[in-house]
């Protein structure tokens, strides 16, 4: 595999391989000096056309822990502001001799276009509403880690996951749904019809508009960030009404089983899609997701750039 553009590129074997590799990089991350020489001499550039703190930092620290050189191409300080085209920007970066380009862009499909233009590995760090494959991988890893701890079985078969909120505009939801269903989980999406993507009936998911009905039945509830703009687009009457019907309030969280996981890709809107107390509940994995994010991205970088044998060095 040359690029990681979509969860589809990985398939079930690829996802399992990333999760296996992640185990060893979690171990590396827990060392006193969390660094291995695996990608020494390789250069990873992050090309972010959209603001992102956690994903960019997570990729950069993953690359550094693997001893890769990192470059950060920030759009606000670059020639993009002077009108340089996407293609010219990317070709310029490649000419500097990079091995991987980690790209975040507000438009769906940009990583596919870049992959056509360059020889370097392209890693999709989020494209518009479309995909965010490393987020899905770290979500799957986090689920497996908790499940293993609690019941000694890391299988996703029969696992029931609710994805709640703005699925239509969410790249996290698309990648999570692809990854979870590929691994055999049952996914229910819970959202008002205005926040469901067109054609969702053809997706391998169940659709519900009743969170109270769904919560008692699920092992995992994955909350999506609700953006304030949605109420201005007539997709919602108000955030208040959204919280009342689809928010994971303290009362609603009582409907969840004691072993259930509460997940959120961040950044959270406390008090909108998730109550503050619920975010801090022991069932919440939100901080663990961030920690695992670095290890998952190390695994992805290793898979695309590594030579293989030094993985555990």
């Amino acid at each position, binding site marked *: 595999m040359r690029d990681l553009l979509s969860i589809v590129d990985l398939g079930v074997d690829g996802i399992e391989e990333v999760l296996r590799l992640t185990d060893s990089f979690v171990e590396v991350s827990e060392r006193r000096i969390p660094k291995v020489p695996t990608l020494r001499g390789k250069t990873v550039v992050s090309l972010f056309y959209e603001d992102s703190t956690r994903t960019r930092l997570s990729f950069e620290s993953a690359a550094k822990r693997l001893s890769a050189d990192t470059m950060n191409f920030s759009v606000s300080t670059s020639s993009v502001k002077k009108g340089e085209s996407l293609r010219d920007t990317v070709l310029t970066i490649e000419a500097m001799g990079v091995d991987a380009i980690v790209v975040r862009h507000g438009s769906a499909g940009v990583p596919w276009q870049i992959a056509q233009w360059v020889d370097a590995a392209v890693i999709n760090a989020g494209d518009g509403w479309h995909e965010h494959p490393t987020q899905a991988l770290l979500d799957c890893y986090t689920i497996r880690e908790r499940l293993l701890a609690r019941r000694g079985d890391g299988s996703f078969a029969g696992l029931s996951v609710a994805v709640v909120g703005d699925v239509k505009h969410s790249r996290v939801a*698309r990648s999570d749904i692809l990854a979870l269903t590929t691994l055999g989980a049952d996914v229910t999406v819970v959202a008002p019809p205005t926040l469901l993507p067109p054609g969702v009936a053809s997706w391998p998911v169940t659709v519900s508009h009743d969170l109270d009905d769904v919560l008692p039945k699920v092992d995992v509830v994955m909350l999506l960030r609700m953006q304030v703009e949605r109420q201005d687009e007539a997709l919602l009457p108000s955030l208040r009404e959204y919280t009342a019907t689809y928010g994971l309030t303290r009362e609603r969280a009582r409907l969840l089983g004691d072993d259930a996981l509460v997940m959120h890709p961040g950044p959270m809107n406390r008090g909108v899609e998730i109550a503050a107390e619920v975010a801090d509940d022991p069932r919440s994995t939100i901080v663990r997701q961030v920690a695992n994010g670095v290890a998952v991205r190390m695994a992805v970088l290793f898979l695309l750039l590594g030579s293989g044998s030094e993985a555990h060095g």
Partner: protein
Amino acid sequence: MAEVVLVVQGGTVVDATGTRMADVAINDDGSIAAVGPDLDVPAGARVLDATGCTVAPGLVDLHAHLREPGGEEAETIESGSRAAALGGYTAVVAMPNTSPAIDSAAVVRQVQELGAKALCDVFPAGTITVGREGTRLSPMAEMADLGVRLFTDDGSGVADSRLMRRALEYASALGVTLAQHCEDPALSAGGHMHEGEWSGRLGIPGQPAAAEELMVARDIALSRLTGAPIHLLHLSTAGSVDLVRAAKADGVAVTAEAAPHHFTLTDEACASYDPVFKVHPPLRTSDDVAAVKAGLADGTIDAIATDHAPHPVEAKEAPFDQAPPGMLGLETALALALGELDLPIESVLALLSWQPARIAGIEDRHGGPVAEGRPANLCVIDPQVTWTVDPGALASRSRNTPYAGRTLTGRVRHTILGGVPVVIDQEAQR
């Protein structure tokens, strides 16, 4: 005394009156001298071989964006007309969404003057509203005086129903036709492809079929109200085809066209994220493609129009949602129609030549029968030859064909404009 200077020899003549083996002799004044078997070739006359070929009235495109004035980096009237001639067209209606827009006599004259030197006849369409802004009527009478017969704000529709009603009423005194780009802008806002399963999966904001169908339904109602004819541009949805079919059965003065990409490609093509597949109206589903084909076959849709929309290479190297919509069409339309519609060549030519000529109001010069005394605007088609679309080999200044690498069957061999061969053996003569 006119003198025969050109003989098209050995072909099968196809026009609205029928099909027959015949040579066509052409006078030095640009008129057809004779049509019949085994015509004499006078000394000094040129012979164009048409053995195994179809000799037809030149094709007529109701819908081409020639980009001049203002968009010369994408196309000029000269380069666009060369592409047209190579595609078999002898007449092209030039869309008025130029910069400045064709919304006054001055710009009409400019396009006509540039068109006079082109490799096909160029008929500027005028805008319905000033600057295509949808607020005030363009001076349609002043443009009609210069010969403009089709008016449209193409690129967008006239959203204001009251204004569209007035435009239809006003135009009805001028003997011209209004043509509509059917798209309800509130419903399509922000959409970059067809809204459906593919847009949902790809995360590209979509525009629903209903955005087109709303305006189709409205304009049918307005045509019924005013009695004025309306031509509907680039129909792309099954619902639109049904609406037009029902309106025609009711006697409404509606005509319609469809573009080759809407009967050959689906929204699935957008999965490549290549903006070459971005077009408005967008590529639709396979059900819509089937409906457009059925509409072309049963007469609901009167014409195939290219919606030839050149864009420079760099404009199509943008993210999908930032790239401009549009595809090249002039050099591929005939082959796609011959290859994909399962219609006899006579029906394909009706859709590409004499039916659009009537809608454009130019049937006196284009699309008419191949007969003595008629203007010699002709194309000679080799229906058997196969060829592969090479974007770099196209005559257009732009390269944005969605058919790159596709092998097509059927190609124009010669094109004759006003008695002068402008394309001979697939080569433009200037």
